């Protein structure tokens, strides 16, 4: 098994997996406590438009998708601030348009469409060195921002009106939060793919929200759980010759069912 770690592609996969796990653990926790899973899903799918743009204009993929997703996130942040009660419909609209735009642009792009699948299902085993470096930078950014605004994030997630009365910059943080979701989504596209992106952002945070005593604890443990899911999924997919992204998610899914079952049992025996 150890000789596997000598292959550069596997080393890259492990490092990228750890980066993605940490970003999704942190941002996913915020997404879950803010009840913004649908919003994160919207950004993730609208990001596909960025993939289309990169293909059609032959632009460098990573920066193009980052810029496009951040733009979508800003639009969603602005619209959801103005009409909070209509946010879900607006997300649905952008979700669909972004995705359709991506597909049409790829249809119109000359040449091969093979790489397309890697954006849907992920290709953690082919992450290039340059992407790993970019991921490292984005991860540091996310960790820095989350630590700097940590207390403010608790306040706006738990009781937004009270946060406003205390003078917490609620609007600025709302935008920062959605930009971070966008960055996190773009990082995750490469590794586990668009379709499976939600799992790493929701499964561990959702499980840990029920037992954690603080957002910090929830974030840290979510990162740890995500790393376990990714690494065990990678190994299993290698030995059983399965799609890596889907295997990672299934590992997480099995853990999810066991964890919920155990919680239920504890709950029942306590009565």
């Amino acid at each position, binding site marked *: 098994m150890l000789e596997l770690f000598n292959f550069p592609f596997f080393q890259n996969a492990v490092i990228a997996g750890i980066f993605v796990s940490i970003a999704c653990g942190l941002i996913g926790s915020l997404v879950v406590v803010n009840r913004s899973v649908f919003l994160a899903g919207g950004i993730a799918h609208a990001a596909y438009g960025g993939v289309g743009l990169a293909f059609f204009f032959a632009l460098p993929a990573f920066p193009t998708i980052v810029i496009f997703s951040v733009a979508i996130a800003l639009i969603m942040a602005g619209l959801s601030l103005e009409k909070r009660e209509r946010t879900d419909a607006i997300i649905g609209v952008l979700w669909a348009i972004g995705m359709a735009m991506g597909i049409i642009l790829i249809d119109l792009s000359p040449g091969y469409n093979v790489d397309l699948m890697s954006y849907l299902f992920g290709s953690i085993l082919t992450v290039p060195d340059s992407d790993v470096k970019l991921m490292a930078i984005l991860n540091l950014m996310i960790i820095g921002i989350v630590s700097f605004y940590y*207390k403010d994030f*608790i*306040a706006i997630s738990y009781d937004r009106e009270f946060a406003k009365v205390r003078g917490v910059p609620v609007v600025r943080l709302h935008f920062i939060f959605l930009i971070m979701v966008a960055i996190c989504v773009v990082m995750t596209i490469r590794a586990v793919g668009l379709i499976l992106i939600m799992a790493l952002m929701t499964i561990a945070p959702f499980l840990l929200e029920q037992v954690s005593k*603080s957002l910090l604890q929830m974030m840290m443990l979510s990162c740890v759980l995500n790393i376990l899911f990714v690494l065990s999924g990678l190994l299993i997919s290698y030995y059983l010759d399965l799609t890596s992204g889907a295997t990672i998610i299934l590992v997480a899914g099995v853990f999810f069912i066991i964890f919920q079952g155990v919680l239920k049992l504890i709950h029942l025996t306590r009565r």
Partner: protein
Amino acid sequence: MKDDGDKCVLEFQGVDFSFNSAKVLVDVNLKIYKRDFVAIIGPNGGGKTTLVKLALGLLKPDRGQIYLLGKEPSKTCHLAGYMPQYATGEKGFPITVLDNVLLGTLDANSKGIFFSKEAIEKARAALSLVGMDEFRDKRIGDLSGGQVQRVLLARAIVSDPEILFLDEPMANIDISGQCKLFDLMADLNNKMTICFVTHDIGLLSQYVKSVICVNQKVHFHKAPKITKDVAKLLMGETCPMELIAHGVPHRVLGSH
């Protein structure tokens, strides 16, 4: 004795507010002075909570001016304490009782992950005041409704506000708890102005110094003499109700 009781801490000048073109408050004129203990009463949907949210700058008036501690509410709201009807975060939020109260110590400049030692000491003092210090490490979701309410009160007073707004502080609290809460509020009233919302006018107490009746229009009464007419205005003539003015209970029956 020189008291600064003549200082106006909250002023509404000709304020209108509507929600989706439905008028909630019309031409509100109001002056509340320092150290007042104000009960804001009125029927459901009469605009009590709206009045508080306007005072805190959480809502913007369609017309008119509001001054909280002499300035626009958005500039001074951090000097006020606010206890909402319920925290908007759902019950499952991963936060302890102590951390919840610590949120009340936040301001525009509190950055980083951990709270300062002083903030923690203040939060524990506030928790002791409401009798909840022993629960400080519990998750907020594990508490009863009345206990949560006491934690929210501690969160509102931890910053030593100049004016305290409480939205339905008595909901979910039993009678003996309500008496204790009134004693605590009376005690706090020595340091700060208090405005509290209640839809239950049976819950006024001898400590209350003024009453604001809110039902689209706003009437201010110095000293709680609630007459039959006021009660009629507020509640219509449909049900009998109990009033306590100056600590003496009266049963007021609507005409049948």
